[in-house]
C-alpha cells in the first residue's frame, strides 16, 4: 500500500508548479492553465485523503471543485477574449491601465 504522505508530496509538487507557472508566465492563458493545475493538485489530495479515511465526502468535494473549475474556465476565457478584443495582447504585464 502506498503511504498517504506520497500522495501529499505529489499534490504539493503539482500545486507548487501551478503557483510557479501563475507567477512567472506572461501569457494569461498559461496563467489560467496554472490555476487548473492547482485545482487538480487539490483534487489529488482530497481523493487520497478520502481513500485513506474510507469516506466519500472528499470525492463529493472534488466533484464540486471540478464543477467550479468548469464555471471558472468559461468566465475566465470569456474575460480573456474581451480583453484581447480591447488590447490585442494576452500578456498580463502589458495590461496596466485602469481604463478601457
Amino acid at each position, binding site marked *: 500500500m502506498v503511504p498517504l*504522505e506520497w500522495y501529499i508530496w505529489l499534490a504539493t509538487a503539482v500545486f507548487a*508548479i501551478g503557483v510557479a507557472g501563475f*507567477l512567472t508566465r506572461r501569457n494569461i492563458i498559461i496563467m489560467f492553465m496554472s490555476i487548473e493545475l492547482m485545482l487538480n493538485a487539490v483534487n489529488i489530495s482530497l481523493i487520497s485523503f478520502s*481513500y485513506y479515511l*474510507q469516506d466519500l465526502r472528499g470525492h463529493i468535494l472534488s466533484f464540486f471543485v471540478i464543477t467550479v473549475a468548469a*464555471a471558472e*474556465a468559461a468566465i475566465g476565457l470569456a474575460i480573456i477574449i474581451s480583453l484581447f478584443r480591447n488590447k490585442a495582447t*494576452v500578456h*498580463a504585464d502589458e495590461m496596466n491601465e485602469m481604463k478601457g
Partner: protein
Amino acid sequence: MLPQVLFLYFAFAIVALSLAVITRKNPVHSVIFMLVLFFHIAALYLTLNAEFLAAIQIIVYAGAILVLFLFVVLMLNLKEEVTEHRYISLWAVGVLLSIAISAIFLMTLSSIPLGAKGVFSPDVIASETHTVALGKLLYTEFLYPFEIASVILLVAIVGAVVLAKKRLKS
C-alpha cells in the same frame, strides 16, 4: 510492490507533464501536454477507487474545459508569442515563492491529525459501485450544495455569453 511502482510512474509523469505545461513556448503544445496530464491524473484516481471521478475528470476536464482553452488559443492565433519572452523579468521571485509555499505545506505534513475512518471501505464501494455510493451521498447529504453548484453553472453560462459577445454599436 505493484501499487508503489504504479504510483511512482504516475507521480513522475504528472510532475514532468505539469512542468512541460508551464514551460512550453507554444500554448497549443501546453494544452496537449495538459491533455496527457489529465489522463494520468484520471488513472491515479482509478488506483484510489474513484472510477466515477476518473470518468468525470476525462469528460469534464479533458473533454470540455481543455477544449475551451484550445478554442481560445486557436481563436487568438498567437503567432508572435513563439518569438517573445515567455517569463516576466522577476521570474526568480515567483519560483522562490512557490518553493516557499510548498515548504510550508510539507512542514505541516507531520502534524496532520487523521480522524476516525468512515464506513466506505473499498469492499463497500466495490459491492455498491462507486457511482451509486456517490450519487446517494450527493442527493441526500449534499443536496443544497448540489443545487448551488447548478446555480453557479447557470451564472457561468450567462456570464460567458455576456462577456464574450461582440458589443453592438449603439
